[in-house]
């Protein structure tokens, strides 16, 4: 336990040192000012009206989000987080792109000021990640306290995660224009819609029912067995044998049942997931959890805290890469108002879930995700949305 504590302290200290060096003061405000200075001034589309009141990030004439709208959208996001789960992060992105009008505003600078256009794209990505990154920090602390954070596995994921979360902002910040970003965001929304849809299909429901039946049957049998004799229980406890340790494969058996685990997978998985998350500006928790349980076949005990740590490490790397290496500015007031809404929404979730069956909630979000997905895909890759309101 002491060794584990020192390991954690060591990792945190290393992160702190990296953070301080990465946090070398930059010209965030200067970069925004430069982008504004390069933009033509005037009242026409794609120009900045210097006499207009400051809006998003203090840009004159930019959409100005009334604080209550930030809270209300946060309530919606928090409600989804607490009732359906991962789709909340997507909805936070939809707010920044569509509801607050940032995409349409940024799009007007595509020809007149590509720098400002791309800076707005990066800022939307960072705003999305802030919401998830701050929360991942709290989750990781909670899991560490609960003793559910498996450091070696988390570090394997983090090694890949840091690489992905560092490379993507460095390689893409300032290069991805808004329409491309919206198109790719639409693709991710479709992927989430497909997962949600599968869970509502008879096949998805049947697998859950079968799992419940298997668990129930085992629970009944197990209770009988353990009450019948502790000798047999003691016999089970002797059956674990680690047959192979290695960098490519770790195998353990238990009374004929063999389980294997390849340490390379968490590194590769961490890289791919962190890269997708950093590119789109989402947390990646919705990808880590199924990856660890389904692809790597690991138990929930390991998955729980480890995914939170992996999200945290890649979020820190990604946010700092965007903000301090590539000097992307963010609107803190917008993030603050959304956070207020998110915790109000998270309280409302359990209240409403008593009255609305989960499957109907999922169906509702499938429809919503397909709508948003089609809207963003067409807007991003065809130049205009085929659906209204996107």
């Amino acid at each position: 336990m002491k060794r584990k504590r020192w390991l954690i302290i060591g990792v945190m200290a290393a992160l702190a040192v990296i953070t301080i060096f990465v946090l070398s003061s930059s010209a965030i405000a200067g970069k925004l000012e430069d982008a504004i200075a390069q933009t033509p001034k005037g009242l026409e589309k794609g120009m900045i009206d210097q006499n207009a009141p400051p809006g998003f990030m203090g840009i004159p004439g930019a959409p100005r989000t009334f604080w209550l709208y930030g809270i209300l959208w946060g309530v919606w996001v928090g409600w989804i987080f607490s009732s359906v789960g991962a789709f909340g992060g997507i909805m936070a992105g939809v707010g920044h792109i569509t509801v607050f009008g940032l995409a349409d505003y940024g799009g007007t600078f595509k020809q007149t000021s590509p720098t400002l256009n791309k800076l707005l794209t990066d800022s939307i990505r960072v705003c999305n990640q802030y919401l998830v990154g701050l929360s991942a920090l709290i989750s990781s602390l909670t899991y560490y306290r609960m003793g559910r954070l498996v450091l070696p596995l988390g570090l394997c994921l983090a090694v890949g995660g840091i690489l992905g979360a560092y490379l993507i902002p460095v390689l893409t910040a300032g290069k991805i224009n808004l329409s491309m970003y919206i198109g790719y965001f639409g693709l991710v929304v479709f992927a989430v819609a497909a997962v949600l849809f599968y869970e509502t299909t008879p096949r998805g429901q049947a697998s859950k029912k079968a799992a419940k039946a298997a668990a129930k049957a085992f629970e009944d049998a197990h209770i009988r067995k353990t009450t019948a004799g502790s000798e047999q229980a003691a016999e089970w406890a002797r059956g674990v044998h680690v047959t192979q340790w290695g960098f490519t494969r770790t195998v353990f058996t238990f009374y004929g049942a063999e389980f294997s685990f390849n340490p390379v997978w968490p590194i590769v998985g961490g890289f791919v997931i962190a890269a997708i998350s950093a590119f789109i500006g989402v947390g990646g928790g919705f990808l880590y959890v199924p990856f660890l349980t389904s692809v790597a076949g690991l138990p929930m005990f390991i998955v729980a805290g480890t995914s939170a740590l992996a999200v945290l490490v890649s979020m820190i790397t990604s946010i700092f890469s965007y903000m301090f290496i590539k000097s992307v500015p963010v609107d803190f007031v917008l993030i603050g108002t959304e956070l207020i809404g998110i915790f109000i929404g998270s309280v409302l979730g359990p209240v409403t879930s008593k009255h609305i069956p989960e499957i109907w909630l999922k169906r509702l979000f499938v429809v919503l995700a397909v709508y948003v997905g089609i809207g963003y895909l067409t807007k991003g890759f065809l130049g205009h949305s085929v659906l209204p309101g996107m």
Partner: protein
Amino acid sequence: MLLTLDSYVIRLYQLTGYALVDFFLGSFILAFTAIIIGEVTSSVAFGAVKKYIETSTDEMVRFQNLSIDALAAGEGATYTACNKLANDAFGKTFFMQVSLSAALLWPVPFVLAWMQSRFSDVEFRLIFTEYSVGYICVFIALYAAAYLIFKRIKRRLPYFREMTVTMAEYRKRSREMKSLADLLPPRDKM
């Protein structure tokens, strides 16, 4: 609203008359205030959904323990089934905790927004290096320090004392979960 508070908040940065001391002291008081406000809203939010979290946690612990028992019994298929159910239940508590953590952290962006308006040009050069850090780095470091101090004194404060007891009970419940280490013979356990 930030402009309204500005005239009050800036007074925290005029306590001693020494610019450097005032900057760190003012930022520390702001960080500490942000933690207290966040802790209060977080405890209110937790109280409101406590029952739901407990139910989800119980379900998660039950299936997780069953999955480990199934593993111990050599029933691979049952292990997979229970693991899937435990993961579903975990998803509920995980995202609930993620969204609840917003209740703790929401004051931070507002403080940073205010500091951005006041101290965006402030830079501290790191000794022996060519790097310098800005207001965000200073605030994050002071926030972490204030959090550690608050954690120490929390149980002595009237309102937070009760919250600490409630949270301890919840954590105890979560600890009842078995891990793969429970499968090891006693001598091999860490």
